[in-house]
């Protein structure tokens, strides 16, 4: 059962990703990215990482996509007027294909016969306890980094009159 669901979700995610980098319409590209990100949330649910799945839905599908659509609209994305790919397209395809072959063969041979066993889902209580005991310093550092990024983004995008 899990295998069937995973296969369907993986095929959908791959379709969304490929359409994102090949579509002519940039807004459609953002919507194809939604498919892939939602698929990732389903995979997180399948691997029993419940909290990460909901964070994925809230932050990526909720916030990041809206931000990207605003970015497309504020920069008046040209649709169908100019070529969307640059001249390095062939080299890029070669590099990406080679990278896929390399990563997939290495991981396929390295993790042969390793399996994901499904025992019990991770509760957000467990995750919170780990986060606020052992990982509290990285957590604080990340929060300071987010603040710095926020201030930096405001200062960059502000018009100085």
């Amino acid at each position, binding site marked *: 059962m899990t295998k069937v669901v995973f296969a369907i979700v993986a095929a959908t995610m791959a379709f969304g990703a490929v359409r994102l*980098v090949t579509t002519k319409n940039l807004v459609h590209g953002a919507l194809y990215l939604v498919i892939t990100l939602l698929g990732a949330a389903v995979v997180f649910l399948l691997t029993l*990482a419940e909290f990460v799945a909901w964070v994925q839905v809230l932050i990526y599908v909720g916030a990041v996509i809206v931000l990207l659509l605003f970015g*497309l609209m504020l920069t008046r994305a*040209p649709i169908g007027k100019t070529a969307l790919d640059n001249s390095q397209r062939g080299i890029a395809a070669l590099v990406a294909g080679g990278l896929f072959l390399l990563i997939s063969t290495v991981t396929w041979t390295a993790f042969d016969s390793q*399996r994901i066993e499904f025992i019990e889902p991770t509760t957000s209580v467990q995750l919170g306890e*780990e986060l606020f005991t052992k990982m509290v310093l990285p957590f604080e550092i990340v929060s300071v980094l987010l603040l710095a990024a*926020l201030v930096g*983004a405001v200062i*960059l995008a502000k018009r100085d009159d």
Partner: protein
Amino acid sequence: MPVQWLLLLSAFLFSVGVYGVLARRNAVIVLMSIELMLNAVNLNLVGFNAMLQDRALVGQLFALFVITIAAAELGVGLAIVILVYRNRTTVSIDEVSLMKW
């Protein structure tokens, strides 16, 4: 479920992201491709956490950190893109080549 399936999916998503970064012209699409690559890494982290049955949940916590960093990166990246658009009325990466060797 064999863990290789998950690794194959994430390798594919990462490679598609690399293609998008290298071949696409619009800066916002390049940012989207970067999100794709970060998501592939998250899939790997959560998958390995499930494979190792890690009680400390390091994989999932790192996935959460990666999501946070991706949001911060996207905010600053879009601010830069909008600034470039305001100055040059284009977000085509080919035309923004002042600092290119």
